[in-house]
């Protein structure tokens, strides 16, 4: 069930109130952008995909069922859009040794420079790991660990079954564990170390 304030914004936006839709955008822009970024792995493309997802949502607000969570509905639109994009192109895996793109300094908006650098590094390496997973595994992992969705909720978003999501997630965890293990063996610095620091 959605927050009544959001339902109110949705109804006002359907009636053409752009201010109400702006409230929706401000409330969910981080969630949508993060999902797009984690799935697409590129900040500029994620920004573009987030815009498209919001525009799609705006055009389909009348189809939104207020009995469902608005955030879940919005993230379903965003994830479908990103999966479509991923299917249209074969993503080139970002090397973990590549320099940090300037546009990736977004996670650090309110952090001190040192903390921001650590977070960027962590985010970038995490992204490099995620990109080695197949698309549907990646989406399951992102929805589970970044959005705390239950298996059933993920199944609803991905139009799948709970058991399928369970095994997909388990397989994804195993794959990530193997990747990290392999990376640690092949590199002295290790992939996990910068990620695990401060935990």
């Amino acid at each position: 069930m959605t927050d009544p304030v959001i339902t109110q914004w949705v109804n006002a936006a359907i009636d053409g109130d752009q201010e109400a839709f702006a409230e929706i955008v401000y409330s969910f822009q981080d969630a949508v952008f993060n999902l797009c970024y984690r799935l697409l792995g590129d900040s500029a493309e994620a920004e573009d995909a987030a815009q498209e997802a919001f525009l799609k949502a705006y055009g389909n607000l009348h189809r939104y069922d207020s009995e469902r969570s608005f955030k879940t509905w919005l993230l379903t639109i965003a994830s479908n859009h990103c999966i479509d994009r991923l299917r249209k192109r074969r993503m080139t895996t970002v090397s973990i040794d590549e320099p940090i793109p300037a546009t990736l300094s977004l996670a650090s908006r309110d952090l001190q420079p040192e903390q921001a650098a650590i977070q960027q590094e962590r985010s970038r390496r995490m992204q490099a790991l995620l990109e080695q997973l197949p698309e549907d595994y990646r989406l399951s992992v992102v929805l589970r660990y970044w959005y705390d969705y239950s298996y059933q909720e993920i199944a609803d978003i991905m139009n799948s079954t709970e058991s399928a999501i369970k095994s997909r997630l388990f397989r994804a965890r195993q794959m990530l564990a193997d990747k990290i293990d392999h990376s640690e063996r092949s590199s002295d610095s290790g992939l996990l170390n910068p990620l695990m620091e401060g935990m």
Partner: protein
Amino acid sequence: MPNEKHLRLMQEALDGELSPEGQQLLTTLLRTDGQSALEYDKLQRVETLLNSAPHERAPRRLAATIMARVAAQMEAQTWVETAAQTKSDPMVEMSKEVIALSVLAVTVVTMPLLISASWMVINAMADPSLLTMVLQQVVGMMLLMLNMMLVFLEKAQSLIESDPLTAAALMSLIPVTLLSLVRYMFVEQA
């Protein structure tokens, strides 16, 4: 390498869904089987890693860009709706038909003028200077009429948009006025 059953046990443990019996089984397994213990340790590290994954925040410009695109989309939609409404308005449709008829009437009335001009040209062929003069006059008149027609059409269009009913009434008077004018010119002069 742990078998499928042991892996499932580990998965349930990571999800916090393990029963007390399952917990006991897992503890025994991890104590007795080094490979399983290693695998579980790897999975636990992944779990910790994923649970502490940072969230990327949207760029500051994102909301403004989205709202600008929404505004543009709404404007375009309003324009299309207005155009569709105007098109389907029967009064406007009628006014357009009246304009078409008026233009036709004007063309019919000016036809004798064009014919007489052609006749003059043919007769003046023997005199090149006269021919030039006649041609200049005819072209000048035609241009003047075209300009008048354009101004007339612009006025008519703006009138249709503002008041379709008055436009229809006024347009219907044009052929009548032109015919009266022609009759006056030819009948009175005869």
